[in-house]
Protein backbone atom coordinates (compact mmCIF):
# COMPACT_ATOMS: atom_id res chain seq x y z
CA UNK A 1 0.00 0.00 0.00
CA UNK A 2 1.16 3.50 -0.75
CA UNK A 3 -0.01 6.38 1.41
CA UNK A 4 0.51 10.02 0.51
CA UNK A 5 -0.19 12.59 3.22
CA UNK A 6 -0.02 16.35 2.83
CA UNK A 7 2.30 16.11 -0.19
CA UNK A 8 2.92 19.64 -1.44
CA UNK A 9 5.51 21.97 -2.87
CA UNK A 10 5.74 25.61 -3.82
CA UNK A 11 4.08 24.65 -7.11
CA UNK A 12 1.02 22.59 -6.08
CA UNK A 13 -1.49 22.33 -3.23
CA UNK A 14 -1.49 19.53 -0.65
CA UNK A 15 -2.41 16.08 -1.94
CA UNK A 16 -3.72 13.16 0.12
CA UNK A 17 -4.57 9.64 -1.01
CA UNK A 18 -3.99 5.98 -0.38
CA UNK A 19 -3.88 3.11 -2.82
CA UNK A 20 -3.84 -0.58 -1.97
CA UNK A 21 -2.06 -3.39 -3.80
CA UNK A 22 -3.52 -4.08 -7.22
CA UNK A 23 -5.34 -0.74 -7.38
CA UNK A 24 -5.27 1.71 -10.25
CA UNK A 25 -5.76 5.33 -9.32
CA UNK A 26 -6.47 7.68 -12.23
CA UNK A 27 -5.86 11.42 -12.16
CA UNK A 28 -7.29 13.99 -14.52
CA UNK A 29 -6.50 17.70 -14.73
CA UNK A 30 -6.29 20.52 -17.23
CA UNK A 31 -2.84 21.14 -18.68
CA UNK A 32 -0.85 23.26 -16.27
CA UNK A 33 -2.73 21.93 -13.24
CA UNK A 34 0.38 20.24 -11.87
CA UNK A 35 -0.22 16.56 -12.72
CA UNK A 36 3.35 15.99 -13.89
CA UNK A 37 4.74 17.89 -10.92
CA UNK A 38 2.67 15.71 -8.60
CA UNK A 39 4.02 12.48 -10.11
CA UNK A 40 7.57 13.86 -10.03
CA UNK A 41 7.12 14.77 -6.37
CA UNK A 42 5.87 11.27 -5.51
CA UNK A 43 9.00 9.84 -7.17
CA UNK A 44 11.03 12.45 -5.24
CA UNK A 45 12.52 14.03 -8.35
CA UNK A 46 11.78 17.63 -7.31
CA UNK A 47 11.99 19.24 -3.88
CA UNK A 48 8.72 18.55 -2.00
CA UNK A 49 7.26 18.20 1.49
CA UNK A 50 4.93 15.64 2.98
CA UNK A 51 4.89 12.17 4.43
CA UNK A 52 4.81 9.26 2.04
CA UNK A 53 5.00 5.61 2.93
CA UNK A 54 5.16 2.36 1.01
CA UNK A 55 3.95 -0.72 2.92
CA UNK A 56 4.22 1.31 6.14
CA UNK A 57 7.84 2.23 5.49
CA UNK A 58 8.36 5.99 5.44
CA UNK A 59 9.98 7.44 2.31
CA UNK A 60 12.34 9.47 4.50
CA UNK A 61 13.79 6.20 5.85
CA UNK A 62 14.50 4.78 2.41
CA UNK A 63 17.38 5.92 0.19
CA UNK A 64 16.17 7.98 -2.78
CA UNK A 65 17.49 5.44 -5.31
CA UNK A 66 15.77 2.55 -3.51
CA UNK A 67 12.52 4.54 -3.30
CA UNK A 68 12.58 5.22 -7.06
CA UNK A 69 13.22 1.55 -7.82
CA UNK A 70 10.00 0.74 -5.98
CA UNK A 71 8.03 3.83 -6.95
CA UNK A 72 8.89 4.29 -10.61
CA UNK A 73 7.86 7.30 -12.67
CA UNK A 74 7.28 6.97 -16.40
CA UNK A 75 7.26 10.38 -18.13
CA UNK A 76 5.44 11.16 -21.37
CA UNK A 77 8.77 11.54 -23.18
CA UNK A 78 11.38 8.82 -22.79
CA UNK A 79 15.15 9.30 -22.69
CA UNK A 80 17.90 6.78 -23.36
CA UNK A 81 21.55 6.92 -22.35
CA UNK A 82 23.15 3.89 -24.07
CA UNK A 83 23.38 3.15 -27.80
CA UNK A 84 21.33 -0.06 -27.93
CA UNK A 85 17.96 -0.96 -26.47
CA UNK A 86 19.11 -4.05 -24.56
CA UNK A 87 21.79 -2.16 -22.62
CA UNK A 88 19.06 -0.31 -20.73
CA UNK A 89 17.61 -3.53 -19.28
CA UNK A 90 18.93 -5.44 -16.27
CA UNK A 91 16.94 -8.65 -16.83
CA UNK A 92 17.34 -10.90 -19.90
CA UNK A 93 13.81 -12.27 -19.96
CA UNK A 94 11.85 -9.25 -21.17
CA UNK A 95 8.93 -10.36 -23.38
CA UNK A 96 9.04 -7.77 -26.17
CA UNK A 97 6.13 -9.31 -28.08
CA UNK A 98 3.71 -8.47 -25.28
CA UNK A 99 3.64 -4.90 -26.63
CA UNK A 100 3.98 -5.97 -30.26
CA UNK A 101 7.73 -5.30 -30.49
CA UNK A 102 10.27 -7.35 -32.44
CA UNK A 103 12.10 -10.12 -30.57
CA UNK A 104 15.36 -8.71 -31.95
CA UNK A 105 14.71 -5.22 -30.62
CA UNK A 106 17.29 -5.56 -27.84
CA UNK A 107 20.00 -5.33 -30.52
CA UNK A 108 18.51 -2.27 -32.19
CA UNK A 109 19.99 1.17 -31.90
CA UNK A 110 17.94 3.73 -30.02
CA UNK A 111 18.30 6.18 -32.90
CA UNK A 112 16.31 3.97 -35.30
CA UNK A 113 13.28 3.58 -33.01
CA UNK A 114 10.01 5.36 -33.71
CA UNK A 115 8.49 7.49 -30.96
CA UNK A 116 5.79 4.88 -30.40
CA UNK A 117 8.40 2.12 -30.04
CA UNK A 118 10.34 4.25 -27.60
CA UNK A 119 7.25 4.84 -25.52
CA UNK A 120 6.37 1.13 -25.34
CA UNK A 121 9.99 0.23 -24.56
CA UNK A 122 10.06 2.84 -21.80
CA UNK A 123 7.13 1.05 -20.15
CA UNK A 124 8.95 -2.30 -20.35
CA UNK A 125 12.06 -0.60 -18.97
CA UNK A 126 10.09 0.84 -16.05
CA UNK A 127 8.74 -2.64 -15.27
CA UNK A 128 12.20 -4.21 -15.68
CA UNK A 129 13.23 -3.80 -12.04
CA UNK A 130 9.83 -4.92 -10.71
CA UNK A 131 8.54 -1.76 -9.03
CA UNK A 132 5.70 -1.87 -6.50
CA UNK A 133 4.17 1.41 -7.69
CA UNK A 134 4.12 2.74 -11.25
CA UNK A 135 3.47 6.43 -11.95
CA UNK A 136 2.23 6.86 -15.53
CA UNK A 137 2.19 10.29 -17.18
CA UNK A 138 0.05 10.27 -20.36
CA UNK A 139 1.91 7.18 -21.53
CA UNK A 140 -0.51 6.25 -24.32
CA UNK A 141 -0.94 9.77 -25.68
CA UNK A 142 1.24 9.04 -28.72
CA UNK A 143 0.06 5.47 -29.35
CA UNK A 144 -2.60 4.22 -31.76
CA UNK A 145 -5.64 2.41 -30.42
CA UNK A 146 -4.25 -1.07 -30.93
CA UNK A 147 -1.09 -0.35 -28.98
CA UNK A 148 -2.99 1.60 -26.33
CA UNK A 149 -5.10 -1.49 -25.65
CA UNK A 150 -1.95 -3.65 -25.50
CA UNK A 151 -0.47 -1.29 -22.90
CA UNK A 152 -3.70 -1.38 -20.91
CA UNK A 153 -3.77 -5.19 -21.03
CA UNK A 154 -0.18 -5.33 -19.78
CA UNK A 155 -0.95 -2.91 -16.94
CA UNK A 156 -4.04 -4.95 -16.02
CA UNK A 157 -1.98 -8.13 -15.73
CA UNK A 158 0.54 -6.27 -13.56
CA UNK A 159 -2.31 -4.97 -11.38
CA UNK A 160 -3.47 -8.55 -10.87
CA UNK A 161 0.02 -9.38 -9.62
CA UNK A 162 -0.26 -6.61 -7.02
CA UNK A 163 1.26 -3.57 -8.76
CA UNK A 164 -0.14 -0.21 -7.72
CA UNK A 165 -0.67 2.18 -10.65
CA UNK A 166 -1.15 5.94 -10.48
CA UNK A 167 -2.15 7.02 -13.95
CA UNK A 168 -2.45 10.56 -15.24
CA UNK A 169 -4.60 10.44 -18.38
CA UNK A 170 -6.71 12.92 -20.29
CA UNK A 171 -8.59 10.06 -21.99
CA UNK A 172 -11.94 9.70 -20.21
CA UNK A 173 -12.71 6.27 -21.69
CA UNK A 174 -9.31 5.03 -20.61
CA UNK A 175 -9.85 6.25 -17.05
CA UNK A 176 -13.20 4.48 -17.04
CA UNK A 177 -11.60 1.24 -18.24
CA UNK A 178 -8.74 1.34 -15.75
CA UNK A 179 -9.62 3.28 -12.60
CA UNK A 180 -10.44 1.86 -9.20
CA UNK A 181 -10.30 5.41 -7.84
CA UNK A 182 -10.55 8.66 -9.81
CA UNK A 183 -9.18 12.03 -8.79
CA UNK A 184 -9.19 15.51 -10.27
CA UNK A 185 -6.47 18.07 -9.81
CA UNK A 186 -7.30 21.76 -10.32
CA UNK A 187 -6.61 25.18 -8.83
CA UNK A 188 -8.62 24.33 -5.69
CA UNK A 189 -6.56 21.21 -5.02
CA UNK A 190 -6.75 17.47 -5.35
CA UNK A 191 -10.07 15.71 -4.82
CA UNK A 192 -12.17 12.69 -5.75
CA UNK A 193 -13.89 12.87 -9.10
CA UNK A 194 -17.64 13.25 -8.64
Amino acid sequence: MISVKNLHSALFNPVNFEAAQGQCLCIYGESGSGKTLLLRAIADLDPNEGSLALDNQARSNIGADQWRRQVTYLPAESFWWHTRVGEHFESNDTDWSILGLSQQIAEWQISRLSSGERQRLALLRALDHKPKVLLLDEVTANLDEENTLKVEALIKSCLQQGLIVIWVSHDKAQRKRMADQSFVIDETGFHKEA
Partner: protein
Amino acid sequence: MELISLSVLDLSLAACLVVLLAILSWHLQLGLQKTLIIAASRSVIQLTLLGLVLKQLFQQSSLPLIGLISLIMLTVAGYEVMARQGKKFSGWWGMGIGTSSMFLSSFSITLLALFTIINVDPWYTPQYLIPLLGMLLGNTMNGIAVSLNNLTTTAHTQKGQIEARLIQGHTWQEAITHIRREALKSGLIPIINSMTTAGIVSLPGMMTGQILAGSPPMEAAKYQLLILFMIAAGTGLGSLAAVWIGSARLFDERQRLRLDRLKSG
Protein backbone atom coordinates in the same frame (compact mmCIF):
# COMPACT_ATOMS: atom_id res chain seq x y z
CA MET B 1 76.09 32.43 -24.19
CA GLU B 2 75.07 35.82 -22.91
CA LEU B 3 71.52 37.02 -22.39
CA ILE B 4 70.56 39.33 -25.25
CA SER B 5 68.43 42.05 -23.76
CA LEU B 6 65.26 42.95 -25.67
CA SER B 7 64.62 46.61 -26.43
CA VAL B 8 61.22 48.31 -26.56
CA LEU B 9 61.63 48.44 -30.35
CA ASP B 10 62.13 44.65 -30.52
CA LEU B 11 58.91 44.07 -28.61
CA SER B 12 57.02 46.64 -30.65
CA LEU B 13 57.87 44.69 -33.79
CA ALA B 14 56.37 41.55 -32.23
CA ALA B 15 53.34 43.54 -31.10
CA CYS B 16 52.83 44.71 -34.69
CA LEU B 17 52.07 41.11 -35.60
CA VAL B 18 49.18 41.06 -33.15
CA VAL B 19 47.91 44.38 -34.54
CA LEU B 20 48.14 42.89 -38.03
CA LEU B 21 46.03 39.96 -36.86
CA ALA B 22 43.47 42.36 -35.40
CA ILE B 23 43.27 44.25 -38.70
CA LEU B 24 42.77 40.95 -40.50
CA SER B 25 40.01 39.99 -38.06
CA TRP B 26 38.33 43.35 -38.70
CA HIS B 27 38.52 42.86 -42.48
CA LEU B 28 37.11 39.35 -42.31
CA GLN B 29 34.44 40.49 -39.84
CA LEU B 30 35.45 37.84 -37.33
CA GLY B 31 34.57 40.18 -34.48
CA LEU B 32 37.67 39.15 -32.55
CA GLN B 33 39.72 42.34 -32.92
CA LYS B 34 38.45 44.02 -29.78
CA THR B 35 38.99 41.08 -27.44
CA LEU B 36 42.34 40.37 -29.09
CA ILE B 37 43.63 43.92 -28.54
CA ILE B 38 42.30 44.02 -24.98
CA ALA B 39 43.92 40.68 -24.17
CA ALA B 40 47.24 41.75 -25.71
CA SER B 41 47.18 45.07 -23.82
CA ARG B 42 46.35 43.27 -20.60
CA SER B 43 49.32 40.97 -21.06
CA VAL B 44 51.62 43.96 -21.63
CA ILE B 45 50.46 45.74 -18.49
CA GLN B 46 50.32 42.63 -16.33
CA LEU B 47 53.71 41.24 -17.37
CA THR B 48 55.43 44.64 -17.04
CA LEU B 49 54.00 45.04 -13.56
CA LEU B 50 54.98 41.46 -12.77
CA GLY B 51 58.54 42.15 -13.92
CA LEU B 52 58.72 45.16 -11.64
CA VAL B 53 57.10 43.41 -8.68
CA LEU B 54 59.22 40.28 -9.05
CA LYS B 55 62.38 42.36 -9.16
CA GLN B 56 61.46 43.78 -5.77
CA LEU B 57 60.09 40.51 -4.49
CA PHE B 58 63.13 38.42 -5.33
CA GLN B 59 65.28 40.70 -3.22
CA GLN B 60 63.48 39.82 -0.05
CA SER B 61 62.07 36.81 1.69
CA SER B 62 59.13 37.71 3.87
CA LEU B 63 56.87 34.68 4.16
CA PRO B 64 53.66 36.67 4.89
CA LEU B 65 54.20 38.85 1.84
CA ILE B 66 54.85 35.90 -0.44
CA GLY B 67 51.82 34.14 1.03
CA LEU B 68 49.69 37.20 0.33
CA ILE B 69 50.85 37.36 -3.28
CA SER B 70 50.11 33.65 -3.72
CA LEU B 71 46.60 34.21 -2.41
CA ILE B 72 46.02 37.13 -4.77
CA MET B 73 47.12 34.93 -7.68
CA LEU B 74 44.75 32.19 -6.53
CA THR B 75 41.81 34.58 -6.18
CA VAL B 76 42.30 36.03 -9.64
CA ALA B 77 42.55 32.52 -11.10
CA GLY B 78 39.39 31.51 -9.22
CA TYR B 79 37.56 34.51 -10.58
CA GLU B 80 38.76 33.72 -14.09
CA VAL B 81 37.45 30.13 -13.85
CA MET B 82 34.06 31.47 -12.77
CA ALA B 83 33.98 34.07 -15.53
CA ARG B 84 34.52 31.39 -18.16
CA GLN B 85 31.48 29.33 -17.12
CA GLY B 86 28.41 29.38 -19.36
CA LYS B 87 26.34 28.13 -16.42
CA LYS B 88 27.69 29.14 -13.05
CA PHE B 89 26.85 27.60 -9.73
CA SER B 90 24.93 30.19 -7.74
CA GLY B 91 26.19 31.67 -4.50
CA TRP B 92 29.64 31.00 -3.10
CA TRP B 93 29.88 27.76 -5.03
CA GLY B 94 30.38 29.67 -8.28
CA MET B 95 33.81 30.85 -7.24
CA GLY B 96 34.40 28.30 -4.48
CA ILE B 97 34.55 25.11 -6.54
CA GLY B 98 37.22 26.35 -8.95
CA THR B 99 39.22 28.18 -6.30
CA SER B 100 39.31 25.31 -3.82
CA SER B 101 40.23 22.80 -6.53
CA MET B 102 43.07 25.03 -7.71
CA PHE B 103 44.23 25.56 -4.16
CA LEU B 104 44.28 21.80 -3.55
CA SER B 105 46.17 20.92 -6.70
CA SER B 106 48.46 23.89 -7.45
CA PHE B 107 49.57 24.66 -3.91
CA SER B 108 50.20 21.07 -2.89
CA ILE B 109 52.17 20.28 -6.05
CA THR B 110 54.21 23.48 -5.85
CA LEU B 111 55.06 22.72 -2.23
CA LEU B 112 55.97 19.13 -3.11
CA ALA B 113 58.30 20.38 -5.84
CA LEU B 114 59.91 22.96 -3.58
CA PHE B 115 60.48 20.59 -0.68
CA THR B 116 61.46 17.36 -2.30
CA ILE B 117 62.52 17.98 -5.89
CA ILE B 118 64.16 21.37 -6.20
CA ASN B 119 65.05 21.53 -2.52
CA VAL B 120 65.48 25.27 -2.16
CA ASP B 121 66.29 26.87 1.16
CA PRO B 122 64.19 28.50 2.48
CA TRP B 123 61.34 26.73 0.71
CA TYR B 124 59.52 29.98 0.05
CA THR B 125 62.39 31.53 -1.92
CA PRO B 126 60.28 33.73 -4.21
CA GLN B 127 62.44 33.20 -7.29
CA TYR B 128 61.29 29.57 -7.35
CA LEU B 129 57.92 29.65 -5.62
CA ILE B 130 56.22 32.44 -7.57
CA PRO B 131 57.04 31.27 -11.13
CA LEU B 132 56.24 27.63 -10.33
CA LEU B 133 52.96 28.53 -8.70
CA GLY B 134 52.07 30.86 -11.55
CA MET B 135 52.79 28.21 -14.14
CA LEU B 136 50.67 25.67 -12.27
CA LEU B 137 47.82 28.03 -11.55
CA GLY B 138 47.66 29.16 -15.16
CA ASN B 139 47.44 25.63 -16.48
CA THR B 140 45.17 24.11 -13.84
CA MET B 141 42.93 27.14 -14.31
CA ASN B 142 42.43 26.22 -17.96
CA GLY B 143 41.81 22.56 -17.20
CA ILE B 144 39.35 23.30 -14.42
CA ALA B 145 37.49 25.98 -16.37
CA VAL B 146 37.04 23.64 -19.35
CA SER B 147 36.00 20.58 -17.31
CA LEU B 148 33.57 22.46 -15.08
CA ASN B 149 31.99 24.22 -18.03
CA ASN B 150 31.66 20.91 -19.83
CA LEU B 151 30.11 19.29 -16.75
CA THR B 152 27.44 21.91 -16.20
CA THR B 153 26.48 22.52 -19.82
CA THR B 154 26.23 18.78 -20.55
CA ALA B 155 24.20 18.21 -17.41
CA HIS B 156 21.88 20.90 -18.69
CA THR B 157 21.45 19.48 -22.19
CA GLN B 158 21.22 15.89 -20.93
CA LYS B 159 18.79 16.53 -18.09
CA GLY B 160 16.37 13.99 -19.58
CA GLN B 161 18.99 11.23 -19.71
CA ILE B 162 20.19 11.88 -16.17
CA GLU B 163 16.67 11.83 -14.78
CA ALA B 164 15.80 8.74 -16.83
CA ARG B 165 18.57 6.95 -14.94
CA LEU B 166 17.46 8.31 -11.56
CA ILE B 167 13.95 7.11 -12.36
CA GLN B 168 15.34 3.62 -12.99
CA GLY B 169 16.72 3.67 -9.45
CA HIS B 170 20.31 4.49 -10.32
CA THR B 171 22.31 6.44 -7.76
CA TRP B 172 23.35 9.98 -8.62
CA GLN B 173 26.91 8.80 -9.23
CA GLU B 174 25.72 6.26 -11.79
CA ALA B 175 23.44 8.83 -13.39
CA ILE B 176 26.25 11.37 -13.94
CA THR B 177 29.13 8.97 -14.61
CA HIS B 178 29.20 9.38 -18.43
CA ILE B 179 29.06 13.14 -18.19
CA ARG B 180 31.68 13.28 -15.47
CA ARG B 181 34.08 11.21 -17.56
CA GLU B 182 33.63 13.37 -20.65
CA ALA B 183 34.07 16.55 -18.61
CA LEU B 184 37.36 15.30 -17.19
CA LYS B 185 38.61 14.24 -20.61
CA SER B 186 37.91 17.65 -22.07
CA GLY B 187 40.01 19.29 -19.35
CA LEU B 188 42.93 16.89 -19.63
CA ILE B 189 43.27 16.49 -23.38
CA PRO B 190 45.28 19.71 -23.93
CA ILE B 191 48.04 18.75 -21.48
CA ILE B 192 48.10 15.15 -22.78
CA ASN B 193 48.48 16.50 -26.31
CA SER B 194 51.21 18.90 -25.33
CA MET B 195 53.19 16.11 -23.61
CA THR B 196 52.75 13.91 -26.68
CA THR B 197 54.13 16.45 -29.12
CA ALA B 198 56.62 18.19 -26.79
CA GLY B 199 60.00 18.39 -28.46
CA ILE B 200 58.86 16.90 -31.77
CA VAL B 201 56.26 19.28 -33.09
CA SER B 202 56.52 22.07 -30.59
CA LEU B 203 59.20 23.54 -28.41
CA PRO B 204 57.36 24.35 -25.19
CA GLY B 205 57.19 28.04 -24.34
CA MET B 206 59.16 27.80 -21.14
CA MET B 207 62.02 25.84 -22.70
CA THR B 208 62.17 28.23 -25.63
CA GLY B 209 62.34 31.16 -23.25
CA GLN B 210 65.10 29.55 -21.22
CA ILE B 211 67.19 28.68 -24.28
CA LEU B 212 66.77 32.17 -25.70
CA ALA B 213 67.82 33.53 -22.33
CA GLY B 214 71.02 31.51 -22.53
CA SER B 215 70.52 28.29 -20.56
CA PRO B 216 72.19 25.06 -21.72
CA PRO B 217 69.54 23.09 -23.71
CA MET B 218 69.84 19.99 -21.52
CA GLU B 219 69.13 21.97 -18.35
CA ALA B 220 66.22 23.66 -20.09
CA ALA B 221 64.88 20.24 -21.14
CA LYS B 222 65.06 18.90 -17.60
CA TYR B 223 63.22 21.87 -16.18
CA GLN B 224 60.66 21.61 -18.96
CA LEU B 225 60.02 17.97 -18.07
CA LEU B 226 59.59 18.88 -14.43
CA ILE B 227 57.09 21.56 -15.39
CA LEU B 228 55.20 19.29 -17.79
CA PHE B 229 54.80 16.56 -15.17
CA MET B 230 53.74 19.04 -12.56
CA ILE B 231 51.25 20.65 -14.91
CA ALA B 232 49.81 17.26 -15.90
CA ALA B 233 49.43 16.21 -12.27
CA GLY B 234 48.10 19.62 -11.25
CA THR B 235 45.59 19.85 -14.07
CA GLY B 236 44.48 16.26 -13.50
CA LEU B 237 44.04 16.59 -9.74
CA GLY B 238 42.46 20.01 -10.01
CA SER B 239 39.96 19.00 -12.70
CA LEU B 240 39.17 15.81 -10.81
CA ALA B 241 38.45 17.76 -7.63
CA ALA B 242 36.38 20.39 -9.46
CA VAL B 243 34.33 17.84 -11.40
CA TRP B 244 33.75 15.75 -8.27
CA ILE B 245 32.66 18.69 -6.11
CA GLY B 246 30.65 20.17 -8.99
CA SER B 247 28.80 16.96 -9.80
CA ALA B 248 27.97 16.37 -6.14
CA ARG B 249 26.58 19.91 -5.97
CA LEU B 250 24.30 19.16 -8.95
CA PHE B 251 22.37 16.72 -6.73
CA ASP B 252 20.80 17.19 -3.31
CA GLU B 253 20.55 14.85 -0.31
CA ARG B 254 17.61 13.00 -1.95
CA GLN B 255 19.65 12.51 -5.15
CA ARG B 256 17.51 14.91 -7.16
CA LEU B 257 19.09 16.67 -10.13
CA ARG B 258 19.13 20.32 -9.05
CA LEU B 259 19.80 22.41 -12.15
CA ASP B 260 18.21 25.32 -10.26
CA ARG B 261 21.56 25.58 -8.50
CA LEU B 262 23.01 26.86 -11.77
CA LYS B 263 22.37 30.28 -13.17
CA SER B 264 22.87 31.10 -16.80
CA GLY B 265 25.06 33.85 -18.19
